[in-house]
């Protein structure tokens, strides 16, 4: 066939040009994102590795992962440049009987980030528990029990809007409600706050919980709620109607039907989507800024239950914020910054991966 007469031959036209331009733009945008992501991850991994790992066995810098933050002292001694953490520096001086050595001190630049890791861990666990309990309960109410209508739509809208509230506002909300207002039981009538006697020589003082784990838990949980409720309602809807009708037709109460034939099949979806949502929230600094985070704590949270709940904690995102903006910047703080960022990134990735793996496994288990 004569190529000139081929009716399907390529022809360049305005439409074709526009198509390549548009396509090129979309491709460019995608590559740009990829580039940014690579740069962010690349820089953190490369720079952070220097802190978290080391060249000689055991290759992991255990001190950084398991010690508390300390002040770093840099000084010259007998012509050698030395870098020592607070404790080591004092022992060094004591061993040599020296009172004072002229040294430069750098806050938070020695030791490790163990209290931050455990603090973040406990913040995640606690807020996850609270968010799941409240979220799953209200999802069950909204999609299984309530009369579908304007009221429920309004509630859903309100919850959806909650997702758009800036995190710093949640932080302020937590500060106002939990830190400064929530009641505590005490053996005395606090004169500076509203109090109610509850008998047995005790009073309910509305003096707030203070900056502590409990305040942080509830603040983070409220932030995660929209995601948890949405995910839970989704999962409940995915359970076939037939399971509900089947059990109701056998004379089950609504709660029996839900408990035995809806929740077990919805729970995997609820859990995995919620974990993902909570992992995101756990990375936020603003909500814990006023409610739970301390600049410095020597040890991991512990003690009895009330002590445990009532103590402030260090947390990875807040620690990064502190060492990046609240203390003088130099090469020593930079090491800790990138190291902390890398550990944090690893932790969040691990949580996300776990939830995704869990979801895949559960999906395979429950099929209908």
């Amino acid at each position: 066939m004569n190529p000139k007469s081929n009716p399907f031959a390529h022809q360049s036209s305005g439409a074709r040009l526009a198509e390549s331009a548009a396509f090129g733009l979309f491709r460019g945008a995608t590559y740009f994102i990829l580039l940014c992501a690579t740069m962010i991850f690349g820089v953190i991994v490369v720079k952070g590795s220097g802190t978290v790992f080391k060249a000689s066995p055991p290759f992991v810098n255990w001190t950084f992962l398991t010690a508390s933050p300390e002040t770093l002292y840099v000084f010259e001694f007998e012509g050698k440049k030395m870098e020592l953490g607070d404790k080591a520096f004092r022992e060094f001086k004591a061993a040599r009987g020296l009172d004072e050595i002229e040294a430069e001190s750098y806050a938070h630049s020695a030791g490790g980030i163990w209290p931050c890791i455990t603090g973040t861990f406990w913040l995640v666990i606690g807020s996850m528990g609270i968010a799941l309990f409240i979220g799953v309960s209200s999802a069950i109410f909204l999609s299984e029990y309530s009369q579908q209508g304007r009221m429920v739509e309004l509630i859903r809208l309100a919850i959806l809007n909650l997702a758009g509230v800036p995190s710093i506002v949640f932080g302020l909300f937590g500060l106002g409600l939990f830190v400064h207002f929530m009641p505590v039981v005490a053996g005395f009538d606090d004169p500076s706050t509203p109090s109610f006697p509850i008998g047995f020589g005790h009073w309910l003082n509305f003096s707030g919980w203070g900056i502590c784990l409990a305040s942080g838990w509830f603040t983070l949980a409220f932030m995660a709620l929209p995601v948890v409720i949405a995910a839970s309602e989704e999962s409940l809807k995915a359970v076939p109607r037939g399971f509900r009708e089947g059990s109701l037709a056998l004379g089950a109460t609504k709660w029996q039907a839900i408990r035995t034939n809806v929740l077990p099949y919805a729970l995997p979806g609820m859990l995995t989507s919620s974990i993902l949502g909570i992992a995101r929230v756990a990375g936020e600094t603003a909500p814990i800024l006023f409610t739970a985070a301390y600049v410095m704590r020597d040890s991991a949270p512990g003690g009895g239950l009330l002590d445990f709940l009532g103590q402030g904690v260090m947390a990875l995102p807040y620690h990064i914020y502190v060492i990046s903006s609240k203390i003088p910047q130099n090469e020593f703080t930079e090491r800790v910054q990138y190291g902390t960022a890398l550990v944090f990134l690893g932790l969040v990735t691990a949580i996300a991966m776990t939830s995704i793996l869990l979801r895949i496994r559960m999906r395979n288990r429950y099929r209908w």
Partner: protein
Amino acid sequence: MNATFETRMDTLPQAARGSQQGAPDTSDPMIEIDHLDFYYGANHALRDISLQIPGHQVTAFIGPSGCGKSTLLRCFNRMNDLIEGTRIGNGQIRIHGIDISDPAVDTIALRRQVGMVFQKSNPFPKSIYENIAYGLQIQGVRDRRRLDEVVEKSLRGAALWDEVKDRLHTSALGLSGGQQQRVCIARAIAVEPSIILMDEPCSALDPIATAKVEELIHELKKNYTIVIVTHNMQQAGRCSDMTAFFYLGQLIEMGKTEKIFTNPVQKQTEDYISGRFG
């Protein structure tokens, strides 16, 4: 009415109760409907329906799709309560002489007496054993021996025992479509209802599985009153004693199945049965 459905049920004569021994009492109507009007919101789905369903017989509801067969069936165990905006406008449904639309009737007790098998077979994604035992377990029965007995009896009742006795503890979802539907029937009879409602139970089954279920229905009517909705004219002819034909929310005609199929009174019934519409 002061008495709950359950207490009234206990005072019924033995013969009227489904799975008990005794001569089936076919003269007594099990379900009586008087001038029933039913609405989905503003949609007037059932219009002035009056009929009587005899005990220990199979009654078939036929009619073109959308004529209200399922709606009427779901009135008998108040499954329509689950759909918002539904209401009975007028009339009465009496089961064993008790008006079941009375708010005093406990739907839980009612549904134990009036079992249901759905169009889309819906075994729970649990083991076969757990599926059958479910109805008793939610009543609080924990006794293993009793459960074992009921499971075997129900599966035998549903003509499924020989096929599944070696795999009771495997998932019911691993069964064929026909077997799954028979699991649903076994599950329904495990709670010893007196009436079993079936909404197009064979519409998703192949002819061989359908034949098995039909045979089972024939067997079941010794102990239960059965109401079956079907799309399939031959099926209604094969397995029912009474047939009711509905059209556009109205009962057009009801009578003995042979009579309806051979010599219907109404022109619409004849047209439908001979396949001229529907």
